């Protein structure tokens, strides 16, 4: 059974574990926390369609699986297309009376940032545009961590990866992160949200709303990666929380085009606090940090203008 009532406190999260332990995700993996809560929310009447990525590789090494739901593995590029197909097949089976037409079965597509921002973008776009009743969950660890930390469209400005090395000519990633929420918004889908595992009630409530939505929904979740971000194992949640508190990551919810900031930050921390925890940003000089700070300031201003209130406040040392 999926969650039926709104999640207001941490005690509304169901106790039942639907994501088996023993998977080979790293110690302190952010994606594992997300998957645990996602499977709690969707319950048993859901079909999971999973693009290649960290979670797929680590949870389903043959002959074992961590999933208790029907689960379909797809390549990087076609999570959206596969999910559309499963949803269309369900519709046909319901029409023919094979499955009870009143039974609610949701198709849930899970993909990493590589399978969404870069390789799977066209099939995601097709899925959103055709209006399939699919919930799409992106766990964003900001590079191709599964294959060994190569840059992706989600890699933030200045971050070290193996394909954006730090040296005389290059100082980490050259381009800022791709705006996935903007892309999803352009498709005018009913539900878009961003979430962070450091705010579990907020994250679970957004996943629940995405599950309840009729039509395509997209939840974009930041997922700290201990080896890729060069952080200590126990700092996963701390980093995810600092991303929100510094304004690098804004917890948004866009229902039918109306934006709302769900976790307001009255006094923002300087981005330096977020960056200094991570080894991938250790090469940044003061000027480069000031440039990132300026970028974040502009982003926050844009968000505040968009939601029509001072949701994210000014920087306070």
């Amino acid at each position, binding site marked *: 059974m999926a969650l039926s009532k709104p999640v207001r406190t941490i005690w509304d999260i169901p106790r039942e574990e639907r*994501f088996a332990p023993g998977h080979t995700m790293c110690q302190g993996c952010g994606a594992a926390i997300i998957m645990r809560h996602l499977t709690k929310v969707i319950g048993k009447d859901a079909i999971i369609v999973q693009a290649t990525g960290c979670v797929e590789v680590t949870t389903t090494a043959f002959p074992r699986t961590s999933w208790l739901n029907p689960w379909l593995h797809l390549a990087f590029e076609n999570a959206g297309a596969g999910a559309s197909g499963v949803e269309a097949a369900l519709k046909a089976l319901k029409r023919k009376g094979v499955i009870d037409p009143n039974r609610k079965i949701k198709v849930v597509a899970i993909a990493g940032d590589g399978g969404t921002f870069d390789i799977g973008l066209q099939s995601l776009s097709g899925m959103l545009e055709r209006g399939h009743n699919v919930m799409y969950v992106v766990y964003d660890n900001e590079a191709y961590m599964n294959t060994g930390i190569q840059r992706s469209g989600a890699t933030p400005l200045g971050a070290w990866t193996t394909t954006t090395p730090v040296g005389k000519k290059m100082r980490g990633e050259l381009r800022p992160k791709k705006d996935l929420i903007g892309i999803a918004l352009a498709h005018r889908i009913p539900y878009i949200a961003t979430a962070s595992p450091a705010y579990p009630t907020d994250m679970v409530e957004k996943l629940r709303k995405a599950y309840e939505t009729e039509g395509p929904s997209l939840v974009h979740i930041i997922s700290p990666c201990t080896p890729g971000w060069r952080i200590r194992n126990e700092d996963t949640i701390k980093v995810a929380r600092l991303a929100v508190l510094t304004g690098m990551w804004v917890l948004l919810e866009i229902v039918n085009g109306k934006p709302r900031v769900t976790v307001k930050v009255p006094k923002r921390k300087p981005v330096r606090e977020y960056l200094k925890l991570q080894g991938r940003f250790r090469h940044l000089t003061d000027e480069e940090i000031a440039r990132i700070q300026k970028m974040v300031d502009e982003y926050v201003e844009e968000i505040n203008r968009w939601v029509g209130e001072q949701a994210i406040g000014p920087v306070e040392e």
Partner: protein
Amino acid sequence: MSLKDEGFKRYLGKKYPETWRDMPIAAIVPWPGNTAEVKTHAWRTIRPVINQDKCIRCRLCWTFCPDGAILEVDEEYKTSSGRVFKVSYKVDYDHCKGCGICAAECPVNAIEMVPEER
């Protein structure tokens, strides 16, 4: 009979394949969620120990555990100061990978990371 006990029985009539003739033609995952059989305890160098008297049952360690290795059990516990709690939190030492998120996020520092000695 649970799906776990059933194992290969569903396909073969016996719990495990005995000869090559018993091997299924296609790949079979015997039961869903069977990574639970894999013990990941050897990964850790430090292990969490919960001080039940200090613990205020805020559920945060359970929420933030990536491996579901903090178990929430309906076990009544009376702390040394006389407070009675309906639930208790225990560590599943078979699956805990020793990342230390629980100890870092505990608001009352009730979880201590102890070096693993073998």
